[in-house]
């Protein structure tokens, strides 16, 4: 850590000193200006919907209907937050999401790491076939009903395993990780072997400690995708107490927008979740996973790039 910091400070010193020595070319400055403008635009475009949702969640219903809520809440109130938070089912589903995400991420990381590590070894017999099996699933799948029958006959229906096991290995993530392991110097592992470590020892004591960046990235990838996923839970779970909060949210929003969702005939009992209710639920559901980003982000770029560039 100390060396890294030293290097960083060295870098900044050199940058600040630069104007005295070499002046950036005109072209470079134009490039920077254009870059800044475009990126600011992107930031605004991506940020606006989110700020708008937050503003809506804190606004009075009347202002939303009148179309007067943009970036700042009008008629500030917290009643809808209190309402949503008082729904026991919301919290049950919320807890499920947390549990599913944590368990699923752990399973995924373990399985993906093991698979990727094995595949990164050129001496492995049948390596091509093993990669082929994984890649095959990227292009072909058994389809909904066969998958459902499989999960049901395995007895996983209505258990947490139906949610956390079926999508445990994401092939894209697997290949990124494989490329990363391939980029590690072979000599390191040879040295470990000479010092008496077996394969597992090498993986656990040498390789993994060197792979924090890629593992952090994978944790982020997996955690976000499991947090946001609703379809597997919807398919394999029959009790609302077991649903993740995404299904709760989806039902709330889809139910509110589709007056005639059910086959062209309107539901006789109006399905109207208030606009603020939607906004509040969206905010409450996305906030935690957003909060994860800043902590992992510093690993993020190096993690993905490492595998890609050096592989």
């Amino acid at each position, binding site marked *: 850590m100390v060396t890294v910091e030293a290097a960083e400070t060295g870098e900044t010193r050199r940058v600040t000193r630069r104007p005295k020595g070499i002046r950036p070319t005109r072209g470079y400055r134009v490039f920077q200006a254009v870059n800044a403008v475009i990126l600011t635009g992107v930031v605004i475009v991506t940020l606006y919907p989110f700020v708008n949702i937050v503003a809506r969640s804190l606004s009075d219903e*009347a202002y939303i209907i009148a179309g007067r809520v943009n970036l700042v809440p009008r008629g500030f109130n917290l009643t809808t937050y209190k309402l949503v938070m008082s729904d026991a089912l919301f919290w049950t589903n919320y807890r499920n999401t947390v549990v599913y995400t944590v368990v699923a991420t752990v399973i995924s990381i373990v399985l993906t790491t093991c698979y990727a590590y094995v595949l990164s070894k050129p001496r492995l017999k049948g390596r091509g076939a093993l990669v082929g099996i994984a890649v095959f699933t990227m292009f072909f799948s058994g389809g909904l009903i066969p998958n459902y*029958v499989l999960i*049901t006959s395995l007895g996983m229906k209505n258990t947490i395993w139906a949610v956390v096991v079926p999508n445990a290995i994401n092939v894209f993530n697997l290949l990124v990780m494989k490329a990363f392991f391939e980029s590690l110097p072979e000599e390191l592992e040879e040295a470990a072997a000479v010092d008496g470590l077996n394969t597992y020892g090498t993986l656990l004591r040498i390789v993994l400690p060197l792979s924090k960046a890629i593992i952090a990235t994978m944790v982020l990838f997996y955690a976000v995708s499991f947090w946001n996923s609703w379809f597997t839970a919807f398919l394999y779970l*029959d009790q609302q107490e077991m649903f993740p909060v995404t299904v709760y949210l989806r039902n709330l929003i889809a139910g*509110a927008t589709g007056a005639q969702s059910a*086959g062209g005939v309107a539901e*006789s*009992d109006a399905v109207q979740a208030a606009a603020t209710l939607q906004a509040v639920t969206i905010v409450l559901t996305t906030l935690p996973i957003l909060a994860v980003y800043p902590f992992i982000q510093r690993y993020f770029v190096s993690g993905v790039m490492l595998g890609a560039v050096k592989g």
Partner: protein
Amino acid sequence: MLHRTWRRAAIAAASLLTLTLVACSEEASDAKDLSGNRAGAMADYDVGTQFTATEPLSFSILYNNHPNYPLKNEWLFWSELTKGTNVKLEPVAVPLSDYEQKRSLLVGAGDAPLIIPKTYHPAENQFVSSGAILPVSDYLDLMPNFKEKIDKWGLKPEIDTLRQSDGKFYLLPGLHEKPWQEYTVAVRTDILDELKQPVPKTWDELYTVLKAMKAKYPDSYPYSDRWSKPTPGGALLRIAGSSFGTQAGWSFQHSTWDPAAGKFVYTGATEQYRQMIQYLNKLVTEGLLDPESFTQSDEAARQKLANGKSFVISSNAQTLVNDYRPDLAKTIPGAKLVNIPLPVGPAGEINPASRLENGVMISKKARDSKNFVAMMQFIDWLYYSDAGQEFAKWGIEGTTFVKDAAGKRMPAPDVDMIGLNPKGTKHLQKDFGFANGVFAYGGKLDLMQSFFSPEELEFQKVMNTRKPVDVPPPAPLTDAEREQVSLWETPLKDYVTQNTLKFILGQRPLTEWDAYVGELKAKNADQYIEVVNKAYERFKKDNG
């Protein structure tokens, strides 16, 4: 070696297939013998009998979980149901947002619960050929209440529309004594008063009114509509279409029965359809109908209404009370919005609503259960008997509702339901599980209307004086035909929708109507209608 293995596998597969086929054909022969399926059933069950199973039973049911009243196991509905009928229902909870998908999956995987409610015709068609769904028409003798209501209310023609090519039907629909037209047009009557205009009774009068509004408020589009996603102009085209004697928007069907010619014709090419388009085109060209009506979100349409940028919008009883009025109350105090009786068009004074509702499918595997007869009796009692319907809708007299001297039902003092008793602290749906869309719909007129506000009652009174629309004769397709026409349906429907909008919005002149009809033919509209007419003739010959 390998070769031999393959051959063995092939033989095994072939014999397995034969076995399945044999098994299937055997099954069909004993359809009527119910002696082994009467466990728990009542011997003397009939109209007016309270169904009570002779032994405790339980049935699985697919449950459409509504976000407004999420399923609770401690609902009075469940406990009272079990107390009265000795039947315990085991719900498989599916979110309303994706109910259809899960239903297809469960039926397809052979894992469906025994009772599958909330099925809208013709959604059951896709399951018929798989053989997973029971042809309920074979077992109507077990359902005295259902049969009685069909006879008493003259619903046979409607029921016939549900029949498949084998002459049977696979869905137990909800039955209404009277058609219930929900959708109509809401108009700002305070603006009408201001302009000294009467409430429009016909589409032509509506045109006059819109014109007057436009003259007074040139910046507005007097009519800006909602319900345009995913079907563009879904509600507007539906109500306008029905008044012009055709089917458009939400209720679009490819074939329309032409009583004069005694055959089916292609809807999108009929004269009635053209007239409807012409009328709406006139509204758009004169700036009376907002062109965005066909694409905008519901929220955008509501905002325009709430901000006084429009004065007319499609509506139903709920949206009027739940959406528009509260919106307006916050933005334009003094605004008065009223649902007018459905404007009359060239089709005359008709009530276009169907008297059938969504209904219940039953898994074929229920037939093998020893409790099959009891289950059919139970469904008959809960969904079709007067007592069962009242129970599902209102609950228990004295607990959840009370009757006044005239027999009019009111929520109990501490119970509220859609604003009928705002002082009630408990909610009939959320806290008790009654008036649940899965169980409560249809029924006698007084039960149907028991939740209506006086205003809605008035509206329905006008609508009930109008004559119900004639039901087209059945023309059920065989599986092969259905597969064939489904290949034509999507391009045809897309083309009709696209051109309907182009004509209405003036992007294509109506003088090109004949060219458009020719283009429909090029997209197999004629072949489509030929198949339907052939099916109609066949059904007539086979079933009288």
